[in-house]
């Protein structure tokens, strides 16, 4: 910066560190809760420093049957469900959006704009505003309590389609011309040229969509009643309800840690792609 005053730089760092502390506090409390035993977690005041029960809690959480007194699927099973859901939503959205963007940009055909607007409309219809009728459709199709029901209704994506359309439009026309002279047909061009040229965009979008898929809450809440289909994110709410009777905050908070870990790791370790994905889908 312009000024070169040490106290100013010092003050800057202090403010930022306070900001980080405020942001990190809830996670710290969660982490601490996950490192103490059940008894300690019922004594006021609760601890502020980590205890030594982390591994015991982890083991109990991952392989136990959830909270004592409630019947939930084992946590590893819920983690697996969440993983399947997140992957299917992310990959599904990417696949169908790539295909429709390809059709809309590289072909001229009747109703092209009609399809474009139809996809655009999905932007204005989040699950929250069509909860009941969508639930009914899924129920009629017999897709309740299935991975298909969890994922397929969520994989239409105007945002992703628009993003890929934007990406394709920036690819020079000469790529297509050159490929045509080389004798590449449409699908060959799509797989050999377009996909490799869009791969960073695909990766960036994947990061965003994985987080989106993993964190789905309302939708799984509606269409899964079978405990074996529960996702890890949903289970927190069930545990909070159970906590009214038997507070086992060490297990609840360990579950919360496990539930947030995958998407948080994705953000931290793929930060570049994450930032790219966030800023590009908003264009």
């Amino acid at each position: 910066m312009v000024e070169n005053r040490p106290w100013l730089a010092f003050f800057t760092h202090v403010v930022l560190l306070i900001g980080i502390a405020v942001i990190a506090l809830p996670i710290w409390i969660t982490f601490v809760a996950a490192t103490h035993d059940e008894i300690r977690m019922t004594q006021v005041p609760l601890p502020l420093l980590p205890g030594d029960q982390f591994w015991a809690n982890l083991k109990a959480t991952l392989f136990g049957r959830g909270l004592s007194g409630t019947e939930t699927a084992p946590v590893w099973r819920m983690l697996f469900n969440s993983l399947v859901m997140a992957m299917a939503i992310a990959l599904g959205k990417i696949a169908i959006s790539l295909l429709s963007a390809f059709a809309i940009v590289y072909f001229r055909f009747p109703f092209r704009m009609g399809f474009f607007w139809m996809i655009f409309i999905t932007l204005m219809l989040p699950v929250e505003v069509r909860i009941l009728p969508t639930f009914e459709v899924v129920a009629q199709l017999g897709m309740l309590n299935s991975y298909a029901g969890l994922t397929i209704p969520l994989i239409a994506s105007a945002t992703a389609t628009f993003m890929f359309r934007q990406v394709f439009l920036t690819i020079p026309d000469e790529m297509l011309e050159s490929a045509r002279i080389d004798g590449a047909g449409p699908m060959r061009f799509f797989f050999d040229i377009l996909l490799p040229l869009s791969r960073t965009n695909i990766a960036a979008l994947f990061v965003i969509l994985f987080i989106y898929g993993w964190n789905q809450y309302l939708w799984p809440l509606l269409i899964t009643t079978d405990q074996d289909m529960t996702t890890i994110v949903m289970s927190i709410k069930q545990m909070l309800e159970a906590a009214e009777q038997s507070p086992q905050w060490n297990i609840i908070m360990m579950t919360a840690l496990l539930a947030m870990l995958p998407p948080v790791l994705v953000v931290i370790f793929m930060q570049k792609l994450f930032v790219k994905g966030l800023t590009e889908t908003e264009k």
Partner: protein
Amino acid sequence: MAGIVLDKLKKSYGGTEVLHGVNAEIADGEFVVIVGPSGCGKSTLLRMIAGLESVTEGEIRIGERVVNGLEPAQRDIAMVFQNYALYPHMSVRQNMAYGLKIRGLPKEEIDRRVEEAADILEIRDYLERKPRQLSGGQRQRVAMGRAIVRKPQVFLFDEPLSNLDAKLRVQMRLEIRRLQKRLGVTAVYVTHDQVEAMTLGDRLMVLNGGRSEQFGTPIELYERPQTTFVAGFIGSPAMNFLPATAEGGEVVLENGARLPGGTGAGRVRLGLRPEHLLADDGGPIRLQAILAEQLGASTLVHGTLEGTDSALVAALPGTRAVTEGEVLGFSVAPAQMHLFDGEGRRIG
């Protein structure tokens, strides 16, 4: 190997016609340059030959085949694009091999052809690199290599040198010419640069407003331009045009000066190339100087025809100091006077 025939070729977008019936016969192994200002339709014409634009009317034949309805890949052509259009995610080798792979050639044959082309173009050392790791000139070579490996009947070039700096452009120009002669492939080359056109082409087609103004060898175009457009476009510095009257084997200028030579009668436009004006103190063409550009080997004197507002430029050999307002005399050989009628067509 094959020649190309363009037969009354027309192209319209929506209701607007951009090519108004272009005819040409290009011989096998010939290097033809299509030259013209931007927007004249030259790229459209080339892209029609390539099959990237549909033909509205007329016929394109490559060899004996009518190719109007054929896909680009079936036309046995190769094209070098202005921005090279290399696939950025493929190595040089993969770029050159891609078309062959699609055609289903055996791997050994592909490798053989790629390496052969790489040797010709001296890009063997870069085969495993990606396009972004190459300089402009090297990319240009790869683009040509991609065309060569296909062993096409026709090379199409769409302003391939316009992204290079001036020095490299001269060098690549020579290489393209040498390569085409060596391979003996018919080539059609589009450019807006008349120097490039003159040096490269066996024959030039000057295209203006979607019409072919003249199709001939560079010397024909220089010595006997058929229209004022061709006359003004070919040659540097550009030809002077002066309003004049032709009468009884003489051309009378605005200021009354009389030049022997010329045919016809009535109002004409007289075209004089700056380099054909010979310094002659008593000569009939009087130039009132405004300023001089010293180019070293020659001096360009800019001014007006004395007593008029008509601009006149003369090229003098060597260096020559000129003061503003100074009047210089010139004469011109009758064979180097070009007369055009009111529509801009050549007389005689």
